[in-house]
C-alpha cells in the first residue's frame, strides 16, 4: 500500500528548495529554532495554566482559612447583630438568596429554554440570526444594567425596593445563558432521532417534547444549574433592586436580602465580627457554587464528555 518515495528527485528538490528560499538558514539550525520555539510555547502555556489554577486554589485556601472558623449553626439560622455585637448570623441572606434564585429561575428558565428550542428546531433565516445575535449581546451586557432596568421598570412604579425586582434582574441574566446552552445541546441530538420519531408518525411538537428534549435533558439541566450558580453570586444588580434587609422576609413585594449583598455590606463594616462573617459568607457561597457545578458534572457525566 505504501507508495515508495522517489529518492533521487528529493535531493534535487532539496537543493532547489534552498535556492527558492534564500532567506532560510540551514536545516539543522532551523530544527533547533523550531524546537526552542516549541519548548518556549509549551512552557509559557503551562505556566499560564498553572498560574490560573494556582490563583483559584489560593483564593479557595484564603477564603477557607478566613471564613471556616466563623461558621456555626447560628450563622445559618440567626439574624445579623448590630454594631459587631457577638453572635448572630446571615439567616435572612440565605432565605433571600433562595427566594431570589427561585424567582429568577421562574422567569429565566422557561424563557431561555423556549428561545433555545426555537433557535435549535425552527430558527432559520435572518430573524433567527438576529435573535441569536441579540442573545449573545444580552450575554455580554454588564449585569448592573439589568439592575437599572429592574429599577426603572419595577422599583420606581412599585415605589419600593423589592425581591420581585431583584428576581427580575437576575432572571434577565439567566435568559441568555439558558438559551445558548439549551440551543447547543439540542443541536447535539442526532438528526436520525428526530427523523425516526417523525417517520413513526409523531407530530413535530411530540417529537420535540418527548424525544428531543429528553435526549438533551442532561445538558439542559447543566445549563440551568450553571445559570443559577452564576446569578447566586451577583451583587451589582441587587443593590438597586432587592436592596437588602436585616430581617426575615418572605414577602416578595418588600426589600429582600441576598448572600452577596450581605457579604458586600459586611466587608465594608468597621466591626471585625462582621468582616469575619463576610468571609464566612463568601466561603459558603463559593462552596455552594462548587458543589452545584460538581453535582452537575457528576450527574451528567460531564467529566468524560468535555
Amino acid at each position, binding site marked *: 500500500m505504501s507508495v515508495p518515495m522517489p529518492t533521487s528527485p528529493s535531493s534535487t528538490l532539496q537543493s532547489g528548495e534552498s535556492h527558492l528560499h534564500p532567506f532560510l538558514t540551514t536545516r539543522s539550525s532551523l530544527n533547533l529554532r523550531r524546537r526552542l520555539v516549541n519548548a518556549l510555547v509549551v512552557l509559557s502555556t503551562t505556566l499560564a495554566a498553572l498560574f490560573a489554577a494556582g490563583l483559584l486554589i489560593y483564593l479557595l485556601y484564603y477564603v477557607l482559612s478566613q471564613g471556616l472558623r466563623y461558621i456555626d449553626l447560628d450563622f445559618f439560622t440567626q439574624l445579623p447583630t*448590630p454594631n459587631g455585637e457577638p453572635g448572630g448570623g446571615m439567616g435572612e441572606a440565605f432565605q433571600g438568596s433562595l427566594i431570589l434564585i427561585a424567582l429568577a429561575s421562574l422567569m429565566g428558565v422557561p424563557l431561555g429554554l423556549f428561545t433555545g428550542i426555537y433557535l435549535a428546531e425552527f430558527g432559520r433565516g435572518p430573524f433567527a440570526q438576529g435573535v441569536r445575535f441579540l442573545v449573545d449581546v444580552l450575554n455580554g451586557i454588564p449585569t448592573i444594567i439589568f439592575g437599572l432596568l429592574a429599577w426603572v421598570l419595577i422599583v420606581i412604579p412599585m415605589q*419600593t425596593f423589592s425581591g420581585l425586582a431583584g428576581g427580575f434582574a437576575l432572571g434577565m441574566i439567566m435568559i441568555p445563558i439558558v438559551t445558548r446552552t439549551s440551543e447547543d445541546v439540542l443541536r447535539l441530538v442526532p438528526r436520525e432521532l428526530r427523523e425516526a420519531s417523525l417517520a413513526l*408518525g409523531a407530530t413535530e411538537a411530540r417529537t420535540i417534547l418527548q424525544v428531543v428534549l429528553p435526549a438533551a435533558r442532561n445538558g439542559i439541566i447543566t445549563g440551568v444549574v450553571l445559570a443559577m450558580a452564576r446569578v447566586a453570586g451577583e451583587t451589582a444588580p441587587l443593590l438597586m433592586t432587592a*436592596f437588602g434587609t*436585616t*430581617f*426575615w422576609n418572605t414577602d416578595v413585594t418588600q426589600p429582600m436580602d441576598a448572600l452577596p449583598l450581605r457579604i458586600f455590606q459586611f466587608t465594608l463594616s468597621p466591626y471585625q465580627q462582621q468582616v469575619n462573617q463576610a468571609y464566612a459568607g463568601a466561603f459558603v457561597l463559593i462552596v455552594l457554587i462548587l458543589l452545584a457545578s460538581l453535582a452537575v458534572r457528576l450527574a451528567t457525566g460531564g467529566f468524560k464528555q468535555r
Partner: protein
Amino acid sequence: MTPFTPSTSHRGRPRLRYLGALLLLGLLALLAACGNSNSSSGGTTTGSGSTCPSTKQLTGAGSTFDNPLFSKMFQEYPKVQCGINVNYQAVGSGAGINNLLQHIVDFGATDAPMTNDQLNKSTSGPILHIPVTIGAVAISYNLSGVSQLKLTGPILAAIYEGKITTWDDPQIKAINSGINLPHKNITVVHRSDGSGTTSIFTHYLSAVSSDWQSKVGAGTTVNWPTGVGAKGNSGVAGQVKNTDGGIGYVELSYVLANNIPYALLQNAAGKFVAPSLDSAKADAESFSNIPADLRFYIVNGSGDNAYPITGFSWVVVYQNQSNSDKGQALARLLWWMVHDGQQYAQPLNYVPLPDTIVSKDEAQIKAMRCGSSACYSGS
C-alpha cells in the same frame, strides 16, 4: 389512537420531574414558614396600650453617620412595638434624600438638612425634618507612634486644599511641640458619595477658613482640591486605617470601633478638644437659636469644652402621608426614636437629644397628616 405510543418509562419520567418540582416547592414553603415563625417570635408584646397598625414593615435609607445607632434601635424596636421591622440601609445621606424624593423609601436619614432646591423637588408636598441624634465628626489619622496630635481649623483646611502636604510641615510642628512628626506625605481621604458627614465637615472648614469658603464651599458633595475618595463612613475609616500617613473625617463611633487615633481640634475658644460625647454636647448646647423648620448646622460652637465639628442628624418624612396605615406606623416609630430610643445613643457615643429639641420633634411628628387626621394618635 395515536400512532406514537410512548413507553411506560417515558411516562414515568415527567412524573418524576413533577415530584422534583414539588419537592423544591415544599422546601421553599418550609423556608418561608421557618422565616415567619422566627420573625413573629421576636415581637408579640406591644409597648403602649393602643392598637397596632397593620403595617409590619417600614423601609428607610440614608446616612451612614447614623447607621450604628439606627441598627441598634431597629433591632430593639420590633421587640417593644408591635413587631414592626424597620429595614434601614446606610446608602449615604445624598442617596437617602433621593430615594425619599422618588417615593421608594418611607423615610430618609441625613446629616445635612435638605436644601431648598431639594425641598422644591418634592411632588408630595412639604417634607419635615426631625432631628434624631447629635454626633461628632472625628479627624482620624494614621501615623505610627503619634498620639494626641493637635490640629487647628485653618491647618485642616490647608491640608484638605493640598497646601500642606507633609506631616512635618512647620505649621503642624508649631502646635505639636514634643511630638516627633515624621517626614511623610499626607494622604487626604474624603467621601466619594453624597454625604451628610461631608456637609458637616465642609461647613466647619468654611466657618474657619474664608479661603475654603470661597474656593471650595460646603455641601454633601464638593469639588475636592486633593485626596482620594472612599464610600461611606466605614469606607473612609478603612482607607485611613490602611494608609500610612492618611487623614480622614469619620463619625466618632466608627473611629472608636476601629481603634484609629483621632486629632484634638482647636475650638472657637482656642482650646484643643478631643471628640467625645461631652464635647459634642457642649457644642450643641451653645446654639440656642433654632429655626422653626429645624434645618441648621452647629459647627464651631462657643464654649471652652465644645468640639467644633459636631452635627445633628435628621429623619426626613413627608408631612402628608399617602398611606394612612404606613403613616401611623411611621409616626409611632419616630415618636419612639426621639423618646425611648434615645437610651441607645450614649453607649454608642451619640449625644442624646436635649429636651428642647425633643419638644420640637414632638410638634413635627404631630404635624404629620394621614388623610384628614393626624398620624400620631398618642400624646
